[in-house]
């Protein structure tokens, strides 16, 4: 009985007693959720358009951030460095399309998945060779990212909001909004959706697959750059950042691999669920459950809906 009480009653009583703590936890969960969503978005973009499960998305985040910081450290002005970093991601997209995707067209998914592993290895070596393997500080000041915290009196307690977190949430939201408009309103966006629906049909109406792939990899590169700046500002730019890419996987599962709104809502659910779970239920089992809670949440959702919350319905025929 005691254990039932501890699992089902006590955390909720605690939530009711200290609503400010609850709001603080919710806020932190939301912020990390938005950032997870941003990384997941990179995966979704590429998966939708080319059916490639891009394992290299995590290292692309690191690589983009490293390029930005590395250029700045060599005396390039911050905004020029930003533009150059975007250009580097464009070059990367073109090279990946030429060297990796084009020769492997029409291969099984798992082979392309493996090819992105190769890309990951290559980028790790390449990034370290050029910029060094040491962790770097993100150039928050030069990019005019706000710092500091505000404390707000709320519900009988103080809730702290990091300015950086607020900025991250806003920028990520703008980014997601822009992508949504890009996908639904522009000519290229329509072409991307056509490719996502069917490669063959898209080809038959004159859409160039190669061009589309470059565009999505470039878009994913820009998303990676933004994600890299945000995560880098929070926890420094180093190769350990690519671990968060793995955190984007349960987000993908929840949202479904092919849905942009799914990635966002999945990100929020995972972010909030993870923080709340760790804070209120973590101590029961000795803490540290943040590492696997997200996956278990995703797994439970999957058992109910195997294609994710917003994924396309799976229809199988023989």
């Amino acid at each position, binding site marked *: 009985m005691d254990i039932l009480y501890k699992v089902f009653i006590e955390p909720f009583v605690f939530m009711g007693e200290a609503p400010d703590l609850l709001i603080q936890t919710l806020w932190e969960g939301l912020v990390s959720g938005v950032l997870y969503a941003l990384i997941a978005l990179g995966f979704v973009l590429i998966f939708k358009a080319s059916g490639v499960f891009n394992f290299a998305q995590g290292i692309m985040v690191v690589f983009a951030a490293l390029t930005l910081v590395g250029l700045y450290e060599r005396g390039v002005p911050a905004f020029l460095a930003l533009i150059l970093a975007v250009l580097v991601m464009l070059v990367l997209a073109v090279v990946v399309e030429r060297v990796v995707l084009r020769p492997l067209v029409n291969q099984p998914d*798992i082979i392309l998945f*493996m090819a992105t*592993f*190769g890309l990951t*290895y290559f980028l790790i070596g390449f990034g370290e060779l050029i910029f060094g393997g040491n962790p770097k500080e993100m150039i928050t000041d030069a990019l005019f990212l706000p710092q500091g915290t505000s404390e707000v009196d709320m519900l009988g307690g103080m809730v702290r909001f990091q300015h950086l977190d607020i900025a991250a949430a806003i920028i990520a939201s703008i980014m997601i909004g822009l992508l949504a408009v890009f996908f639904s309103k522009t000519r290229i966006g329509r072409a991307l959706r056509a490719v996502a629906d069917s490669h063959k049909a898209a080809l038959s109406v004159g859409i160039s697959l190669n061009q589309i792939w470059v565009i999505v990899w470039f878009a994913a590169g820009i998303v990676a750059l933004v994600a890299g700046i945000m995560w880098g500002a929070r926890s420094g730019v180093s190769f350990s950042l690519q671990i968060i890419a793995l955190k984007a*996987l349960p987000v993908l599962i929840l949202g479904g691999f092919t849905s942009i709104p799914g990635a966002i809502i999945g990100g929020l659910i995972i972010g909030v669920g993870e923080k709340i779970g760790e804070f209120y239920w973590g101590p029961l089992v000795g803490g*540290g459950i943040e590492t696997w809670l997200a996956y278990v949440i995703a797994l439970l959702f999957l058992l109910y809906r*195997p294609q994710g919350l917003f994924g396309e319905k799976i229809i199988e025929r023989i």
Partner: protein
Amino acid sequence: MLYREAGQFKTNYVADSAIFPLRQDRLGLGLIIVAAYALAFMGSDFLLQAVLIPFLVFSLASIGLNILTGYTGLLSLGTGAFMGVGAYACYKLMTAFPGVNVIVWIFVSGFFSAAIGALFGLPSLRIKGFYLAVATLAAQFFLQWCFIRIPWLVNYNVSGALEAPLRTLFGIPIVGATATPQTRYLVVLTIVIVLTWLASNLVHGRIGRMWIAIRDMDLAAELMGIRPLQTKLLAFAVSSYYCGVAGALLVFLWYGGAEYDVFNINQSFFILFMVIIGGLGSLIGSFFGAALIFILPIVLGIVLPAMMSPFGISVGADVIEHLRFMIVGALIIFFLIVEPHGLARLWQIGKQKLLVWPFPY
């Protein structure tokens, strides 16, 4: 010239369905096994300890994952954790019952891993493809958390690490600090040969055909009367058994002691690389994959500095390390482009070419 089919007639069904229908193949296999045993007495300690033992251990783990991913078509990223279960189970059994021979416990520990694997395989009935891969990540992270948080698993020792106690076979130490690389290599080699032979019989028999049917199209297989739940869970169990034994070998016969960190997510990816590069659905591919992924970086580490020195470029160890990453990455992509079906397919093509040589077909 020597590699010819001519004159070898198949006169009964047993000969027709043999795994190695050619006399030369059987001879070659025998030679390889003899050579592998001979290496124990001729190879240096470095070769045995740093190259051959890990190669065999990773080959075994790759065979395990290949049964799941290559033969049954279920993508798993929890290999590292399943290896860990085997290692921790073996440690608990070894220390709880010191009287029983350690070889027995290495084989038994695989069953614990099989049980856990089957448990985490349950979602595979509903989930497929990359979704399943992420579901197995739950196993990976949850089990790794268990290894850290449950001190009972390491008998409450302060360091929190697995330590190999001294264990002997026929009076010769095979596990523990005093065991020589030679004896450990012989033990690992024998276990790997036995388990590979078992795996070969499994995948070529009725069970293997069931797995392949599920892989090719599970809906059709179900209509043909193959029960998907049992078949998939069996694949998970057998695969995890192999991974578990490989994990136990890794800790007790290679490292001699290890922390939870050995069984992290990178280990899972590492094994998956080997399986895909080697060839999905091929036992010999597992060995090729392990050789390429594990031995290639070692060779590069030795060859690269030697290659650079004639040009007067002296480079630091860190640059070599980075170049190694780049080359391995580029080679993975290169091999996939050349032959997406893995090294095993290249091997098959090579053998076919050799059979008809000097004619093109």
